[in-house]
């Protein structure tokens, strides 16, 4: 009896399926528990990879619940590539549709934030500009300038206070207060850092990241919030080493 890899794969991912006949122990008996070693290796190793990639989700759910969630997720969305360091792209969407965690509305955005942190960690290196160059620009020139931003920069917009929730769980930060936050991820050297931005701050950086001029980005942000203060967002870009070139018109 020949066993092909389609049968093998289906039986690995579905514990309800019979072990394919043709897989045997040294006495020629059905492989039974021996096949379960592979089942277990696959689910446990991929669940562990998710646990390492989403430590705050794991903390929010607790180890037991996370392991149940991970088992469901791994079976529904096994990795499409051997690059396990980036496994989990589908987790935010999966959390949105996973009934047992529906009441935790912020979970999908926390998962997006943890994905962004990991992608930032592995992103290409890029040397930042000398920040003195920004100060040398006259206000008029600055308005016409476009910014090239580091590949490690990420923006995660949310209706939830995701940075505060992340800090509360990962760093014993203060108790989160309700309100929308955008997470800005920058990576000054090797370790990504988080900055919380207002919705207008998100508008400002999203425009800059799309290659609009500083002036156009500022206008968008000011339309969103007439009292928009660009200082925190700009300071975070500079201290995060996230500006890699200035292109003046």
């Amino acid at each position: 009896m020949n066993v092909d890899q389609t049968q093998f794969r289906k039986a690995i991912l579905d514990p309800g399926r019979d072990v394919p006949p043709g897989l045997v122990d040294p006495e020629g008996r059905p492989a039974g528990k021996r096949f379960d070693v592979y089942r277990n290796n696959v689910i446990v190793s991929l669940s562990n990879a998710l646990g390492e990639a989403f430590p705050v989700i794991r903390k929010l759910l607790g180890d037991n619940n996370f392991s149940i969630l991970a088992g469901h997720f791994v079976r529904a969305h096994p990795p499409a590539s051997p690059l396990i360091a980036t496994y989990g792209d589908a987790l935010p969407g999966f959390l949105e549709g996973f009934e047992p965690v529906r009441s935790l509305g912020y979970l999908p955005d926390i998962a997006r934030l943890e994905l962004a942190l990991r992608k930032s960690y592995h992103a290409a290196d890029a040397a930042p500009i000398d920040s003195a160059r920004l100060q040398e620009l006259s206000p008029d020139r600055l308005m016409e300038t476009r910014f090239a931003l580091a590949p490690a920069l990420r923006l995660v917009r949310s209706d939830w206070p995701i940075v505060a929730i992340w800090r509360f769980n990962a760093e014993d930060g203060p108790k989160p207060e309700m309100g929308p936050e955008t997470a800005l991820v920058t990576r000054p050297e090797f370790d990504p850092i988080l900055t919380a931005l207002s919705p207008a701050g998100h508008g400002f950086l999203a425009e800059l990241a799309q290659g609009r001029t500083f002036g156009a980005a500022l206008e968008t942000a000011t339309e969103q919030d007439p009292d928009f203060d660009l200082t925190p967002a700009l300071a975070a870009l500079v201290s995060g080493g996230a500006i890699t070139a200035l292109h003046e018109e």
Partner: protein
Amino acid sequence: MLDATPRQTLPLAPGVGYKPQHFNAIMEDPGPVRWLEIHAENYMGQGGRPLAQLRHLAERFPISVHGVGLSIGGEAPLDADHLARLRHLVDWLNPASFSEHLAWSSHETAFLNDLLPLPYTAEALSRVADHIDQVQEALGRPMLLENPSTYLAFAESEMAETEFLREIARRTGCGLLLDINNVFVSCTNQKLDPRGYIVDFPLDLVGEIHLGGHDEQEDEHGAPLLIDSHGTEVVDPVWTLYAETIVAGGARPSLIEWDTDVPDWPVLAAEADRAARILTPVLS
């Protein structure tokens, strides 16, 4: 087109599987460790700390690149994207060695993150040989193929694992990576004699040896079922088998693998030292 000259060869000495938490300890005092092995898939990002650490390590140590995701034993064609990523890494690093497994891990868009077994048939042999030809062509160098840990057998198998590996090497010109712990685990699980396995193994083709720890369980009939966990010290019977292999086949670059519950550096260095004490008398 096997014309790329590796920068260095692996020394006939102990190496360890590199873990980022050991970076400072290794740079400060590697002890008996003379070379390092990395898992290729952990160094396929665009930048950041993993690649920066690897650049530093490669300046000081010969590096072995060990793939865990190519699925050489897969029924489907090799993943061209993944092969291109491997080529990129090998071109950049010019490592002393590249190795992969006689196993499969991907099928029909799912990567299962484990080294899954294949039947030892003429059909599988021809498929694996084709895949290895492709890898060696893409990387421009010969590779080493590692014997797997297995927990079950295929009723359809037509030949012994040693015969299968020997024939693969003959057809493709690849070398072999002999994992002594895998020999012990598989032979225990398959009710074979590990010494007989070593006797049947083409030791002259071995370019590297692996040593690692395993867990002990039992199957539903009470038969021993060893699990290749890489989470503990190498057990005494595996050290004995290693020493006998070195005496029979000569010294080889020998790697300590410890991938789960990774200990502090001194524990790993002590394991490497134990390998050094077996290698040194053979070399002098």
